[in-house]
């Protein structure tokens, strides 16, 4: 009975179970992550919120396959993550655009590196750029674009090879508060249209509540997940919705867990 049920239920897009990570440093081992477990379903938007230095970025490196876990298991679509995968698109804190490439060429970088079919990739890149409001900027260079546009380019680049999973590491941390809200609205729209599975790392509670289906709260040193909270609000959401009772309560709940985490 249970075996049959397990066979029917699809494997989660991302499976993190009992993962621990210990760095070896000159002054002895440092435990960055302890007993992290988190399943992300297909098409789900999950945020990870936590104080600075809680190991959010370490978790991200594990998911990207840039580093190996000391303990536990990470899997994508049921297959263990052993290294970088083509099924993942990454957006870092900085846009990391190559200044010698035009916006279009920057977006096509994954296609070049993964040796994808150039014409169809270009077509997809143009469609994505238009969707992100960057139509007409294909031949511009990154330094000719504003900070927000550079970040949108980085998101489009992460989507161009049609990854299963989109990993975002505090992608708007460097932006001013107003641009930041606009980017979150933009991301909600892009997500609604592309329906990617997203893991979004942030230390903004508002951003997490605005964007996510579920929010994982992390504690510092060693990083642990102290709570996973559901966000019941329907989409499209606006930042004004954050003041509505249900979401305000959710924010308070996150804050309470963060406070506990800090203590």
């Amino acid at each position, binding site marked *: 009975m249970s075996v049959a049920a397990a066979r029917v239920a699809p494997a989660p897009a991302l499976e993190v179970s009992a993962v621990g990570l210990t760095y070896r440093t000159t002054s002895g081992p440092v435990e960055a992550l302890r007993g992290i477990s988190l399943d992300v379903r297909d098409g789900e938007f999950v945020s990870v919120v936590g104080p600075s230095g809680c190991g959010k970025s370490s978790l991200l490196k594990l998911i990207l396959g840039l580093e190996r876990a000391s303990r536990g298991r990470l899997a994508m679509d049921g297959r263990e993550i052993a290294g970088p995968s083509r099924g993942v698109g990454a957006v870092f804190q900085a*846009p*990391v655009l190559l200044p010698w490439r035009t916006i279009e060429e920057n977006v096509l*970088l994954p296609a070049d590196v993964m040796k994808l079919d150039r014409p169809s990739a270009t077509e997809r890149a143009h469609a994505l750029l238009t969707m992100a409001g960057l139509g007409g900027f294909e031949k511009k260079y990154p330094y000719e674009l504003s900070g927000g546009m550079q970040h949108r380019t980085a998101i489009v680049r992460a989507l161009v090879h049609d990854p299963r999973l989109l990993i975002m590491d505090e992608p708007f941390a460097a932006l001013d508060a107003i641009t930041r809200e606009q980017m979150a609205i933009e991301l909600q729209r892009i997500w609604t249209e592309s329906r990617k599975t997203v893991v979004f790392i942030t230390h903004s509670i508002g951003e997490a509540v605005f964007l996510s289906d579920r929010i994982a709260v992390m504690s510092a040193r060693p990083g642990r997940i102290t709570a996973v909270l559901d966000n019941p609000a329907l989409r499209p959401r606006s930042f004004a919705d954050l003041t509505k009772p249900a979401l305000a309560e959710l924010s308070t709940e996150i804050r309470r867990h963060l406070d506990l985490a800090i203590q």
Partner: protein
Amino acid sequence: MTDLATTETPATDRHSARGFRASAWRGLERLVSLAILLTIIEGGIRVFDVQPYVFPAPSAIGLALYDGIANGTFLHALGVTLTEILGGFAIGSICGITLGIAMVQVPLLDRLIYPYVVGMQTVPKVAIAPLMIVWFGFGISSKIVIVALTCLFPSLVNTIAGLRAVDSDRIALITAMCGSRAQLLRYVQLPNALPYIMAGLNTGIVLAVIGAIVGEFVGARTGIGVLILQANFGLDLAAMFAVLVMIAVTGVVLSFILRQIELRLCFWSGKATK
């Protein structure tokens, strides 16, 4: 006609027209200041009756330059020396860049070769020039080798520095895309190193001029260096200054050409992007 054309062109063209006018003005400034300086020197030499074997008057230098160019000896010598400079520069720089890439890609090679490269660099090129004449003769090839050895170091060092100065985010970016080391080199490291390499080439071309002249001093049949020695033996200081002016102009022109290539190739350099 031209006025009409400039008033009707869009903003970007008008901007470049203004840029052209500004650079033309700067050129004029330099010419005028040079003319004033030369006039002062000329006047001083005439007033104090300085002998031409002590310091030749600018007018005498100009005349010697004209004579040398008109009778073909200067241009022939310049042709020989320029061949040495450009040949040696090309060989030295290509070797330097290739070796730099190899040393960054293969750490073992770096550990094995680098001490020798530094050791070779500390030996003055003048000191090994006689050896090169013994090995490669009085012809053009010995000078090309000397110039190549001179240019090798700056291009090598700058290539290594440029390839290593890659932002860790850019490495993570390529790695997360399943990129190989060869792809990291091609898509990130080499373009990143380009401004460094161009700076190395610019140092190299100036050193190449010095290397070629030094090589010719030690042993050659023709070339700018030989002209200098001949003028020196004849105490013909006007001719000597004329040759020096020619070398300086050659060096400036070569450096300027490289700078223009650099501005085209590294158009993005210095523009803020993260």
